[in-house]
Every structure is written in structure tokens, then in C-alpha cells.
């Protein structure tokens, strides 16, 4: 199982949207995909028409009250989901008092290794929290989602600093990749940011820039991945191309 953590220090950078639709694109290729919502806001959970009010969520998995296998939900588009809930915020509080708590997720995911081909971790919008630290320590590839808008580069560079510090402390070295999101070529700012990202990140930046699309908003409202709502849309094409890149350039390539 290859694990990707989608993170950024900045909110609204497209982490959840990328997680949902990239999972959908991978599932559409026949891959067995697990999506774990690590954001207490539970937007990935809501974006896949799920909820964890009365069922186990990522909190119970992380605290060991429930096995990861028992928290799996079947979500639209062939995705398997471990949902989130507002109570996941308690984890930061509880685990902060324990040593080595950033390695919890890695341990609880180990039994799922043979059941899935890809695992996507949707992180909360802060890179210096314990949930993101868990995701970073559990992942093989850290996917930094960077919006092609104002302050995006500053947010990405800040996230990279925090990630580097976390990795140094954890003695773990996942591959760092960057994906540009919300790209609108009509906007000069977006074009300039994309050029700057290409200069800054080079080969670490995926060839596919996810274009902004009204269809993505509609998909979030419908609670399905874009591959189900509008399989021929530009957004579906973008995520398909990104999924192809993940397959073409695995870790270490």
C-alpha cells in the first residue's frame, strides 16, 4: 500500500478536494483506494456523502478503541473511507501528553497494507499539529497542495519548513511532491504563481495543474467524486492525468 498525505499549512488550498477526486480517479482505474479523513472539520467525509455521528471515526482508530478494519465505510466511486468527526479534535489534546504519539497512525494502518493499493490522508489545515505529524510519519509521499493564488507560495514554503522539521524529528523521509490547484489561466496572478512554482519546485511539481471548475463545487454538493458526476469534464481530465502521473512516477522514481 502506497500512502499519500495531502497537506499544507494554509487552509483552502484544495487538500480535501484533491483527496476526494484523486481517490475517485485512482478507484476508476481499478485501484483499491482508502481515504482517511484526518480533518476534524470532516469535509472529506461530507464530500463523500458520509457521516460518523454514531459510527467509529478516525479518532477511535487513532486512540485504539476500534481497529482500522472496523471503521471502514464504503463511499461513492469505489472509495473506502475512514470518516472524521468533530470529536477528532480531541486527539490533539489527548495525544499531546504522550511520547511518540506522532507514530500512532503508522502503527494502526499496518494491518491494512495488503487490503489497499493506495491510501490518501486528508490532513487538517495546519502543518504543525499532531494529526498532520501523524500523517507525515505514516506516508510514503507527502503531497503539498498549493493553490495558484495570492500568498500560496508563502504558505507552501512555510509548510515545507514545518514538514522538514517534523521529518527530521521523526527520522522519516517520504518523497515530497507538489500539486498546483485551483488554476485559472485567465488570471495573471495564477499564471505568475504557476511559473514561480515551476521555478521553485521543478521536478517535484506534478505536470498536471488542477484547474478551477464549477463542476468540483457541484460534486462536493452532490457528495460524489467528479468521476461520477461529470466524467468528461476538465476537472475529471485533470484528476485522471494526476492519477496517471502517480502511477508513472512512484516513490523513488
Amino acid at each position, binding site marked *: 500500500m502506497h500512502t499519500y498525505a495531502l497537506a499544507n499549512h494554509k487552509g483552502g488550498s484544495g487538500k480535501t478536494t484533491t483527496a476526494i477526486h484523486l481517490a475517485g480517479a485512482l478507484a476508476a482505474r481499478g485501484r483499491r483506494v482508502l481515504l482517511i479523513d484526518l480533518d476534524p472539520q470532516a469535509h472529506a467525509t461530507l464530500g463523500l456523502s458520509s457521516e460518523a455521528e454514531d459510527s467509529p471515526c478516525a479518532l477511535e482508530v487513532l486512540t485504539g478503541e476500534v481497529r482500522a478494519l472496523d471503521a471502514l465505510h464504503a463511499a461513492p466511486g469505489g472509495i473506502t473511507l475512514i470518516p472524521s468527526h468533530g470529536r477528532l479534535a480531541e486527539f490533539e489534546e489527548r495525544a499531546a501528553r504522550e511520547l511518540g504519539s506522532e507514530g500512532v497512525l503508522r502503527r494502526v494502518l499496518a494491518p491494512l497494507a495488503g487490503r489497499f493499493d493506495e491510501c490518501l490522508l486528508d490532513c487538517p489545515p495546519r502543518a504543525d499539529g499532531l494529526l498532520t505529524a501523524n500523517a507525515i510519519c505514516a506516508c510514503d509521499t507527502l503531497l503539498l497542495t498549493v493553490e495558484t493564488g495570492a500568498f500560496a507560495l508563502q504558505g507552501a514554503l512555510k509548510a515545507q519548513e514545518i514538514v522538514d522539521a517534523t521529518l527530521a524529528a521523526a527520522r522519516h523521509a517520504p518523497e515530497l511532491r507538489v500539486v498546483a490547484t485551483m488554476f485559472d*489561466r*485567465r488570471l*495573471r496572478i495564477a499564471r505568475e504563481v504557476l511559473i*514561480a512554482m*515551476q*521555478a521553485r519546485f521543478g*521536478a517535484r511539481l506534478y505536470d*498536471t495543474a488542477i484547474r478551477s471548475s464549477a463542476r468540483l463545487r457541484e460534486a462536493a454538493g452532490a457528495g460524489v467524486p467528479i468521476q461520477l458526476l461529470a466524467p468528461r469534464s*476538465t476537472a475529471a481530465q485533470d484528476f485522471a*492525468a494526476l492519477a496517471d502521473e502517480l502511477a508513472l512516477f512512484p516513490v523513488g522514481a
Partner: protein
Amino acid sequence: MDSLALLCSLYGQGPVTLRRLRDAGCRTCDDVLCLEPAKLADALRTRLPALAERFQREARELAARIGEFGGPAPALESNELAAVSAPALESNELAAVSAPALEEAGAQLRPELLDGLDSALCLRLRSLGIDRVEDLACADALDLARSLEVPVTRVVRLQFLARRLADTCVETESELRTFTLLPRRSQLSAARFSPAESAGELAPLVEQERMEVWAREQAFEPAGVATEGAAGPFGAEAPAPEASAPESEAVDPFA
């Protein structure tokens, strides 16, 4: 992201264009420049060589900017930014565009060929060297509007009709509108980018960009919707479109 992927994201249809160019054997912007316009047009699935030539110009500018030729481009000082400009698209360049085999694209502009193209406008277009439908389709909308002293939205609409007549590779009206509303070539070439200073340099662009988008959206609203002095989407201080856009854009030809 390599330079070809960047080019396709900036000026093409993203991964679709990238796949087509890679299938045609292109790996860098340099490869795009080395292709014959006709072959590039085939690769881009367009029937207009002029669009291929335009894509090559974009590739040339981008390659120069990101330093694909001869190593990384040096970062520019802020006072140099304004001094950098791409070669303007002269009207005689438009006339020099090779004529396609298409009868429609090569058709001479004449009154009533396009909805809204009257004889007076036709004469003025010819005086600028724009004789054919293809020339009109490929012209810079903003420059043309200034030269003709007509609203830019009227030019945009005429270009849309011209492209539809020429049956380009662009498939939908929204794509056409997007394509047409790309900024002028001189705007696209603002400056080489210094990554270290990028975030700071971008900040002044933000407000300007927001206002441009807002003004553009207002320009497409039916007449009467945007009232003078109305509050913009970014607060009460935002100027009415008549105040922010050129005077020629105040009249809506779509109404």
C-alpha cells in the same frame, strides 16, 4: 513540472494538450518551436495554422523567460519589470499569417458575414490589415478594440463568431470566451520571475486582478444591471465598471 507541461497549462488545455504534444514527439518548448506550424496544428488538432503559430510564440516567450535556452534566466530587479515587454503583435504579422486551406477561414471579411459586422467596421478592419476571418479570429481583442475605437466586448463577440465560422479546435463557447479574454501579449510578458521574491512581487497584482475580473464580469452583465456607483463585490469602495474599465467597454454589445 517540465517546461512543456507548464506551457500547456498556461496556454493550452492542460493535460489534453500535453498528451497530444508528447504523442507528437515534443518534450520541451524547444521541440514545439522546431515543429512546422502545419505539423503543430495537426498535433494540437486545430485546423488553423495561425493558432499553432501563436502557440509557438507563447512557447518562445516562455522558454526565454524560464531560461530554457542557456540556463536559468536571471532574476530582474523590480524597476526592470516594466521595461520587459514581448514583441508586440503587429498588424502586418496578422496579414502575414499563412492562409489555411479552409475556405471559411480564408474568406474575405465582408459586411453581414458575421452578425454585427457592418460595412463601416469592415472598412476599418481592412485598413488595419485584417482582411480575412482568420485574421479577425487571431487578432488581439484589446488592441483591436482600441484601434477601432469600439467596445472590447463587441470585438470579443465578433472574434467568437469568426472562430466559430472557421471551425477551430475549440469546442465550446465558454472555451472560446476564455481564449479570447486572455490578456494581451504585452501583459503576458510582464517579467521574468524571481522565485525568492515571487510572493512579495505578486501581492500588488492581487487587488488589480480582482478588480479586472470584477470589471470583466460586469461587462458581460445585461445592460442596466450594473449601475453607476454600485458597490462592487469587494466592498463599498469598489468603483463602478464605468469607472474602472476603459470608456469603450462601458457599452454592452450583447444587450
